[in-house]
């Protein structure tokens, strides 16, 4: 690991100023950053340690019914917060389906949003990677790309975003609060991560020095609590990144779908909201045929980026099953295997 200057700011304003310098990076828990630094994948000159800043580790219920999650709230604390998990069960399930207990105990909310892709070629400094080294090419194209993107990819980059948490957040219209030198701004999480295009090295809309201070869920997001699930298919039952995942949230009135939310993970360089599929569900009866139709629409634009055509079929099935699980109702207790297709089933599953 290359050495670095260590800076511990006393306020958000000081942090933003210290992190605006070229080569600076924010340090929260460091569960992804230190791993990348040990591998020589990222080589910051300065770490701005924000873990000692006050007031960023709170979950606040605001007067308008929205919930504000501070950037330093730990993944485990959010998932195990009873009130939060009751109101946003799909988010808690997504969090608990990710990483290991040790990592969830350390990893922060802001850090989860900013974690880097797990593309093996990005992680290997000897490989060509336009994200790590712009203009060097992409060894994932024509390489081992079974797990790579099927939506929104470009010739420059076929990596995926690895977060589970972000998938459920995007389904529920989360907003990111950002502090910069020019003050505070906010942006929907759906518009926060960038697709690769010609510049896969630019991963989010953050400008130099800008810092995530909170993630906010609108009041409306809690209206899906009775029918909200996260489903994640991976190579191991636990402690593995998604091959494909889906968050599904429904509002059902007298057997008819009044509102629907779907987002997919593991398919693109950002959490992928499937709005056309949501439209198809509106006004329909919650049954397998409708879910399959919606799932087909969700993948209508999908294209293999290599040996990963199977992911399109898999994603269709994962979306349809996530919808069936959501329609069957949020289980009273978190499943023993959160997000797992092997978890004890509740209700009728859609085998498609």
């Amino acid at each position, binding site marked *: 690991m290359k050495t670095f200057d260590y800076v511990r700011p006393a306020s958000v304003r000081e942090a933003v100023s210290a992190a605006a310098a070229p080569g600076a990076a924010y340090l929260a828990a460091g569960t992804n950053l230190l791993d990348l630094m040990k591998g020589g994948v990222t080589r910051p000159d300065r770490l701005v340690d924000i873990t000692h800043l006050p007031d960023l580790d709170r979950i606040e219920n605001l007067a308008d019914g929205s919930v504000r999650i501070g950037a330093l709230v730990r993944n485990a604390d959010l998932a195990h917060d009873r009130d939060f998990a009751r109101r946003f069960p799909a988010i808690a399930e997504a969090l608990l389906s990710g990483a290991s207990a040790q*990592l969830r105990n*350390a990893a922060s909310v802001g850090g989860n949003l900013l974690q880097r892709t797990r593309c093996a070629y990005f992680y290997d400094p000897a490989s060509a990677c336009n994200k790590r080294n712009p203009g060097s090419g992409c060894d994932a194209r024509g390489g081992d790309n079974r797990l790579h993107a099927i939506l929104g990819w470009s010739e420059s980059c076929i990596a995926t975003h690895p977060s589970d948490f972000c998938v459920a957040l995007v389904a529920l219209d989360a907003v990111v609060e950002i502090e910069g030198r020019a003050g505070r701004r906010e942006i929907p999480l759906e518009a926060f991560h960038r697709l690769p295009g010609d510049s896969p090295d630019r991963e989010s809309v953050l400008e130099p020095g800008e810092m995530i201070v909170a993630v906010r869920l609108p009041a409306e997001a809690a209206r899906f609590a009775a029918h909200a699930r996260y489903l994640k298919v991976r190579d191991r039952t636990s402690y593995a990144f998604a091959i494909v995942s889906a968050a599904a949230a429904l509002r059902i009135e007298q057997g008819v779908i009044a509102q629907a939310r779907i987002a997919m993970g593991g398919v693109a360089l950002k959490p992928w909201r499937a709005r056309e599929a949501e439209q198809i569900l509106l006004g329909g009866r919650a049954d397998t045929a409708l879910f399959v139709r919606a799932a087909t629409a969700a993948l209508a634009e999908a294209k293999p980026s290599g040996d990963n055509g199977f992911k399109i079929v898999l994603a269709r099935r994962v979306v349809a099953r996530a919808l069936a699980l959501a329609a069957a109702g949020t289980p009273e207790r978190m499943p023993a295997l959160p997000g797992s297709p092997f978890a004890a089933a509740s209700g009728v599953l859609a085998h498609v």
Partner: protein
Amino acid sequence: MAFSTTLTINGVKRTIALDDPRVTLLDLLRERLNLTGAKKGCDRGQCGACTIIVDGRRINSCLALAISHDGADVLTIEGLAQGDRLHPVQEAFIAHDGLQCGFCTPGQIMSAFGLIQEGQAGDDPERVREAMSGNLCRCGAYRGITEAVLEAHKTLDALNRKEVA
């Protein structure tokens, strides 16, 4: 540039000079304080052999910078027994053969300790396996490990009840 970090380690408060900001909690324990119970397996947060308890939660000490944890309370495997009396989690690992070569065992035991404190798994073996998935055992002693965690949970639960009553 010189730094220092103040940590309470197994109940003893110490201020440690650091000449390099790159020192992880794991390296600090092993290389500077001769507390070699926490193991360096992968050094990348994948194997769990370095698991320790920091401020009441189990974490991977290989991915934690010592300088950033200034003021933290640290519990390692060396601080678990009381004199010659092993902690119930340690007793249970012996009783159930929750190990073979022993390399991953300090991490397994500290992870089990943290898991029981978290109170999320209870007496459900499937929840225990899921909650212990961040600790790899290449000898494959998982069955004994799961049994040990379940028994330790029962023992500690009974002890807590006695204390309350």
